[in-house]
């Protein structure tokens, strides 16, 4: 039987008001362990969606005191994407995945009888999220994940997808026999196989993105946000610039930066 969007969607909408501050949005995203909130006013139709990637603008553009003050004054309504891309609840999952690929979006609002009833995201297809908060989080070193998922180019796609789901990771670093990074495979790369049988011979090397963006472990979060936004990537491979040929030290994702923004005591919560 064909799996429909309603079968795997996250029921209900996690929302925030348009005047919610970016710091508050970061807190909500972290508390609910989601990557986006629907922006809406009570009893009105949703206005837009704000994601962890949108919040990166806070770190990206806060290059001095003046811009930080301005960015802290912005709200979900200012940075949200509008209108929201939608999908009908009875659409096959495969079609929803294709829509996400075509529109280059990470989530769709699920509609039934012209009313929103849930959200479907890449995470629903592949994995959830799991991050541990640290006390001091100001640089890439403080925020990144030290432990991360690794596979080889020859790893079968089915195996990679299974491991990503079991470990709740949204991506895996692809390395060669000597541990040198060759690319990253993400949930987005696997979307094309949703709803269809996967050729057992297909490997991670066939679908991974070889365009790796790296960052030094001592770089600031502002630099990390800048790299992610400029390269339109949700994660960066963390290297030691003094020994760039060595095995990567970690992975930093957009969600890691948002978690820092949500941390009590961070500049975004003051």
């Amino acid at each position, binding site marked *: 039987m064909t799996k429909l969007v309603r079968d795997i969607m996250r029921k209900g909408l996690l929302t925030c008001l348009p005047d919610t501050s970016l710091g508050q949005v970061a807190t909500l995203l972290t508390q609910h362990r989601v990557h986006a909130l629907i922006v809406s006013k009570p009893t009105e139709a949703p206005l837009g969606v704000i994601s962890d*990637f*949108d919040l*990166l*603008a806070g770190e*990206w*553009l806060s290059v001095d005191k*003046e*811009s930080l003050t*301005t*960015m802290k*004054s*912005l709200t979900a309504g*200012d*940075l*949200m994407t509008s209108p929201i891309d939608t999908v009908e609840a009875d659409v096959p999952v495969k079609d929803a995945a294709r829509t996400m690929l075509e529109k280059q979006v990470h989530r769709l609002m699920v509609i039934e009888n012209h009313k929103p009833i849930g959200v479907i995201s890449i995470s629903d297809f592949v994995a959830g999220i799991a991050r541990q908060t640290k006390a001091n989080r100001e640089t890439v070193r403080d925020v990144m994940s030290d432990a991360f998922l690794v596979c080889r180019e020859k790893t079968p796609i089915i195996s990679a997808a299974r491991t990503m789901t079991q470990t709740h990771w949204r991506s895996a670093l692809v390395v060669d026999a000597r541990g040198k990074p060759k690319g990253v495979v993400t949930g987005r790369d696997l979307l094309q196989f949703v709803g269809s049988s996967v050729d057992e011979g297909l490997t991670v090397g066939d679908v991974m993105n070889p365009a790796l963006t790296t960052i030094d472990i001592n770089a600031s979060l502002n630099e990390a946000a800048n790299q992610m*936004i*400029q390269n*339109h990537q949700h994660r960066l491979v963390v290297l030691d610039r003094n020994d760039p040929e060595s095995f990567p030290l970690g992975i930093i994702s957009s969600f890691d930066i948002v978690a820092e923004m949500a941390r009590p005591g961070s500049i975004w919560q003051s």
Partner: protein
Amino acid sequence: MTSGSIGMGEQDQAEREKFENELKSILKACEGSGILLRVIGSLAFQLHCPEFGFLQAAMGRAYTDIDFGAYGSQSKQIQNLMTSLGYVENREVFIASEGERAIFDKAGTGLHVDVFYEKLDFCHTIYWKGRLEVDSPTIPLVELLLEKMQIVKINEKDVIDTIMLLLEHPLGDDDKETINIKRAAMLCSNDWGLWRTTTMNLGKVQQLAQGYDQLSPEQKSKVGSQVQGLIARIEQEPKPLAWRLRARVGDRVKWYKEVDEVQ
């Protein structure tokens, strides 16, 4: 727009010829040397606009110096060239700018040469990489246009140069006596700040052109249609996520670097 600024005022023909002849001497000395020294600024517009170049003098646009764009790897050769022509370098500028700019003066002549290495870095950055080979003896027309359009507090002299350029050259997708709008659109779609300033200034140029008595109604109309063509092409270019995200923040965060008046 700033008026009454450097670069505006009456300048007699002899004074204009002094700058033009000196530029010819420098370019002649460059010939066969392998040095890519490309003219930018007012003299570049004059060189590239043989039909409408008269507007500079007619509108009170004066030469103040001779400006070039060049590659940093040739800075030593350029220093030797200028020394051989009787110029003395202000070495402090080169050191303070970390090799991005060199200023040469010719004693007793009032002549002053400014060389910008690798890029023009004022309100926004215009990089030379791969572009100095495209045209000669000036930088390509689209870079000439962007040299002016990247100035947030644009001056009358910059508006006059832009009007000349738009009257003289058609818009197109290459650089052969054409303003390469494909490149302008690409650069503006990669940088929201450059898009913001460029489109703002194009609007100003269109508006201010209507006020010049030196331009005929047809010429004013031509400037307008060229500006509209440029803006339409820039808007049509797909914008990446970074651009769209920056656009949502808009003018609330400063989108340009503060600089002193660009000469």
